[in-house]
């Protein structure tokens, strides 16, 4: 895999050296479900301030990878380092405190809560007051509630959700619900944001808007991002580096240009047409 090293070097040269700290390091991560291997021996690095795309055909193991990183699934082998802390399996109940937040391929919102309340729940890990303090509304409970409210309102504003702030999320269109999920993730101010197909099922206009929000998540909210997305145009435009999965294995890793030119990627994912056609198509 000469590709990996050259491209990391390229990337590191493009950005300031200070930002190149690793925020996520996967080594040899393998996950199988009853004999069916979902992901196999995956290495993946995410540097601070990076937008890191993972692409691949359906069933390639992209979502499984995100589920392993966020502690939903427990890998069979391998290690996951978040910052400097190394895990054999990431504890799901602690990921929020570790500075990880995520969205889901198929929405996982709290349907009985309004947009505002959903976003506020993203701050649950920061709450230390007891329910009695919260009911009476004194001291730190009051401060926490005010803080949660202010931060949630700010994120809702930033993601243009103000007009639906008090609506139950279940009554909102799909694209808007996707945005609420992003808001719920962002409000925790994560170091690492995992986005599992944030633009699936969206119109071109909605995709463009969402791409803007993903960039804002990095630039304004200082999150490093792992992005799963099928729209190659979006991925090429947004990402700093792209890892390509096929049948649970990583078959390529590098800058968008390098990945696009990789013959194995073209065979596995982009299509079997001639190289030049593909490049023109995705530029269009």
């Amino acid at each position, binding site marked *: 895999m000469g590709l990996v090293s050259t491209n990391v070097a390229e990337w590191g040269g493009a950005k300031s050296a200070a930002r190149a700290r690793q925020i996520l390091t996967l080594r040899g991560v393998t996950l199988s479900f009853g004999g069916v291997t979902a992901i196999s021996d995956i290495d993946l690095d995410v540097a601070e301030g990076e937008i890191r795309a993972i692409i691949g055909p359906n069933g390639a193991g992209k979502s499984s990878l995100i589920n392993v990183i*966020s*502690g*939903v699934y427990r890998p069979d082998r391998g290690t996951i380092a978040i910052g400097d802390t190394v895990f054999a399996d990431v504890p*799901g*109940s602690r*990921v*929020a*405190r570790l500075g990880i*937040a*995520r969205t*889901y391929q198929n929405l*996982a*919102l*709290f*349907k*009985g*809560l309004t947009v505002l*309340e959903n976003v*506020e*729940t*993203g*701050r*649950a*890990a*920061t*709450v230390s*007051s007891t*329910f009695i303090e*919260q*009911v009476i*509304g004194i001291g730190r*409970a009051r401060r*926490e*509630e005010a803080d*949660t409210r202010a931060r949630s309102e700010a994120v809702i504003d930033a993601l243009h959700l*103000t*007009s*639906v*702030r*008090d*609506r139950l999320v*279940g*009554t*909102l*269109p*799909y694209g*808007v*619900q996707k945005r609420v999920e992003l808001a*719920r993730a962002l409000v*925790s101010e994560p170091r690492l944001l995992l986005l599992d197909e944030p633009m699936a099922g969206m119109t071109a206009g909605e995709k463009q808007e969402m791409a803007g929000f993903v960039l804002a998540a990095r630039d304004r909210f200082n999150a490093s991002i792992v992005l799963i997305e099928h729209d190659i145009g979006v991925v090429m435009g947004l990402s700093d580096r792209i890892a390509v999965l096929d049948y649970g294995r990583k078959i390529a890793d590098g800058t968008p240009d390098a990945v696009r030119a990789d013959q194995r990627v073209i065979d596995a994912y982009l299509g079997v047409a001639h190289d030049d056609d593909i490049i023109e198509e995705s530029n269009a």
Partner: protein
Amino acid sequence: MTTASIPLPRPASAIGRVPTWPLPLAVIVFAYAGIPLFASDYLYDAILAPFLALSLAAVGLNILTGYAGQVSLGSAAFMAVGAYAAYNFNLRVEGLPLLASIVFAGLIASAVGVVFGLPSLRLKGFYLAVSTLAAQFFVQWTLTKFSWFSNYNPSGVIDAPALNVFGYVFEGPHGRYLFSLSVVVALTVFAARLVKTQTGRNFIAVRDNETAARISGVPVLHTKLLAFAISSFIIGVAGVLWAFAYLRTVEPHGFNLDRSFQILFIIIIGGLATIRGAFFGAALIVVLPLVLSRAGTFLFGSYFDSGVLDMSQRILVGALIIVFLIAEPDGLAALGNRIARRLRLKSPTN
């Protein structure tokens, strides 16, 4: 999933919010000042006393089942724990004020609730419901088997103590009503506040999507057990009201599985995850047999005896549950909202 077809709302939705407190406040004022103007002893003792106790139990169960999504068939057991604990605290601890006995009784019910809530950490839905049946049978068996709980009274039925609060004794139908009402108002205000806090949001988050809740940082296990604890506390106190202010005796058979189902039906008919639904549902369940009995006697005369009444009541409640689950899963509370909205749309000012 038809949500995708619903258009984006007007931005005005956030502006047109009305404060939610005046209506409940008006109801409380009416309950204290209005009802005593016309209420008879019959209304107090036969309708309002069980209504208040069942409403409170339903508020408690709604926190657990409606908000936190953990189905329980053990409500009557927690009522029994509350009633017996209050009786024994009052009996055995010299000079303990009645209110303290009630609070301690709530805490005991809470502890028992947490113990029987432990299976919720592993079980969901139907399986959890079945495991809470254990509470129902175990508690009833314990209270019957060990006569220490009923102070070795041969019949197992014991008289409730007087409702003495700081020297003032709540006596007679009206007095007992005021006592019950005050306890119900205090705990209902507590519950209504609770569900609006982060803890309340955590309840709903755990109910709606446990995995997403955990990953978002909601302490799922803690939240579930807290729901059992708070719910059982309130249900335990409701049990005290049932025994001390309504029946004025304490006996285990009033707290059987039928009662647990009754409370579950109240929150289904009234509306899951609403505070006011508990009161709507309880009103329906308490008033229904009385209306049915009057109507039955009027229509069928002496053929409509107590056996027929009992049966027709069961059939009607069963039918109501089915109708509500199909036509209005959010219960009477949602039905009320819908009617209010219709009326507002028709009025020319809006």
